[in-house]
């Protein structure tokens, strides 16, 4: 019997060591140390990811699945290995369930077109929520227009939670697809996705989980969640931009038409008849983002090494600290007060537009996001045009939260509100 080594979950995350792994975090902005709190938009990249990209381009760069030369073999193997890493990371049943995409947006569009367009018909319903990112709204509107299906929207409460009572009544046997954010990008609400998936399945609907905001903050097991599709982006998970993942249950993917046509996705091409390869290749027409997949695998390796349970615990602690700090600012109003929430905090200050907050914070080296967060329907529901949002990653510190609060106080001084 081999020796089993496990990382004790009780050892807290060593943030000093982690920060050392992210070169950009030592940057100065406007004469101040960078305080990067825009992680919900994109996260920074550790050296292992940058090194993996560099190593690929300096030692293995080649196209995959075609050249018989050494580099072609290396690139093909590295790309295949990246898919294995994602499979293990999500605990997917098979590697064929992992499709590489450009990101979450492309993954959702892929499902909308390759599954939705052929499975929806007039009278069918697609159920989304009022807190979705535009990328989990517009693809469904498009496929509804094409097929004559209709869109239903789960409403959101004043606290920024899904109104589950309404969800239950909106879910009918006409509902064919439920597409829902795991965590709201705009206000940090963690949605009760297990409950939603179970209820949807009981009604015969398939569920797509938009995991863009959750994948780097909590351990996700697609088999225990039992979601049918799951989408996430590499660049929000400490990996490169331009790479993302669609997980789909093998039986569903096997039944889906191609998303795009081209090289790499065909078995044979003739002018009379073309046959397609099995998933996942069927959905990856053209030369894929090989370097991106390799970089993403390195990022996942990094997260695994730190350990997602440890990341979750650290971020939850920092969230409490940030909420305390922000609530101490008299003029500040938190937007979204879900009981189950992630380390992403939206706020407004009466008399200062979020963009002006963003500019003044930037002058202090503090990077946050200001705007509608690609969630205009949610902003309308909450009766605000925009918010300022500070979103936390595993490398942020209490010291940085203090800098955020100080910078907000400066904004209040500048505006004299």
């Amino acid at each position, binding site marked *: 019997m081999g020796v089993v080594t496990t990382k004790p979950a009780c050892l807290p995350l060593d943030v000093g060591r982690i920060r050392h792994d992210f070169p950009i975090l030592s940057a100065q902005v406007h004469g101040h140390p960078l305080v990067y709190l825009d992680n919900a938009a994109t996260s920074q990249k550790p050296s292992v990811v940058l090194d993996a990209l560099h190593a690929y381009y300096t030692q293995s760069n080649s196209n995959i699945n075609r050249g018989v030369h050494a580099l072609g073999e290396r690139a093909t193997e590295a790309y295949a290995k990246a898919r294995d890493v994602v499979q293990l990371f999500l605990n997917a049943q098979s590697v064929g369930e992992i499709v590489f995409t450009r990101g979450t947006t492309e993954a959702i569009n892929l499902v909308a077109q390759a599954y939705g367009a052929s499975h929806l018909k007039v009278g069918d319903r697609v159920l989304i929520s009022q807190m979705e990112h535009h990328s989990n709204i517009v693809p469904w509107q498009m496929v509804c227009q094409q097929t004559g299906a209709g869109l239903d929207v789960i409403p959101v409460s004043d606290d920024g939670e899904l109104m589950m009572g309404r969800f239950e009544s909106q879910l009918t046997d006409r509902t064919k697809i439920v597409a829902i954010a795991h965590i709201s990008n705009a206000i940090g609400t963690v949605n009760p996705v297990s409950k939603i998936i179970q209820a949807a399945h009981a009604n015969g609907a398939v569920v797509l989980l938009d995991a863009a905001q959750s994948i780097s903050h909590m351990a996700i097991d697609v088999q225990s969640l039992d979601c049918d599709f799951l989408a996430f982006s590499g660049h929000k998970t400490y990996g490169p931009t331009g790479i993302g993942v669609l997980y789909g249950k093998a039986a569903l993917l096997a039944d889906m038409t191609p998303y795009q046509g081209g090289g790499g996705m065909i078995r044979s091409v003739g002018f009379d008849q073309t046959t397609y390869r099995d998933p996942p290749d069927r959905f990856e027409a053209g030369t894929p983002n090989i370097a991106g997949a390799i970089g993403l695998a390195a990022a996942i390796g990094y997260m695994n090494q730190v350990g997602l349970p440890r990341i979750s615990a650290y971020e939850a602690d920092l969230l409490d600290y940030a909420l305390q700090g922000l609530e101490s600012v008299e003029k500040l109003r938190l937007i979204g007060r879900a009981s189950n929430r992630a380390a992403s905090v939206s706020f407004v200050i009466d008399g*200062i537009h979020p*963009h002006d907050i963003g*500019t*003044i914070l930037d002058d202090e080296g503090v990077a946050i996001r*200001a705007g509608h967060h690609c969630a205009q329907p949610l902003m309308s529901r909450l009766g605000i*045009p925009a918010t300022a949002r500070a979103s936390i990653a595993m490398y942020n510190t209490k010291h940085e939260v203090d800098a955020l609060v100080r910078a907000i106080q400066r904004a209040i001084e*500048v505006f004299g509100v």
Partner: protein
Amino acid sequence: MTDLAELYQDIILDHSKQPRNFGELSEANRHADGYNPLCGDHIEVWIRIDDDHVGKVHFSGSACAICTASASMMSQALQGKSHEESGVLFEQMRQMLAGTGDGDIDQSGLGKLAALGGVRRYPMRVKCATLPWHTFKAALDENTGQPVTTEQ
């Protein structure tokens, strides 16, 4: 003056907090909508034109301090200008706000509007300042088939 202090000068903050000529103009005979789709800002501009002269300019909407101050100061500066003079001022403002160097920008004749020049150091904010002017121009030229947008 630091860049930030130049951006948020007293006159800018004053106009953003107490915007002049704010609200719909009932006697208007020109109107346009302007959007910045990147941030969701939306303003409306109303103009009363009489005999080729800008009688009054009003605006409304929800926008940041830079956009609101720019719209407010614009509404004052354009009052009484001829169509042609308005076009000249629009072009001067466009050059000042979107320009890159201090040297080649003619700020004479801009008066108080020169205070908006601090936005040049903030490329992400330039569109906040230009949105009201583009919206005004669209209303003036009756080019209102499509709302004005900062992104084409």
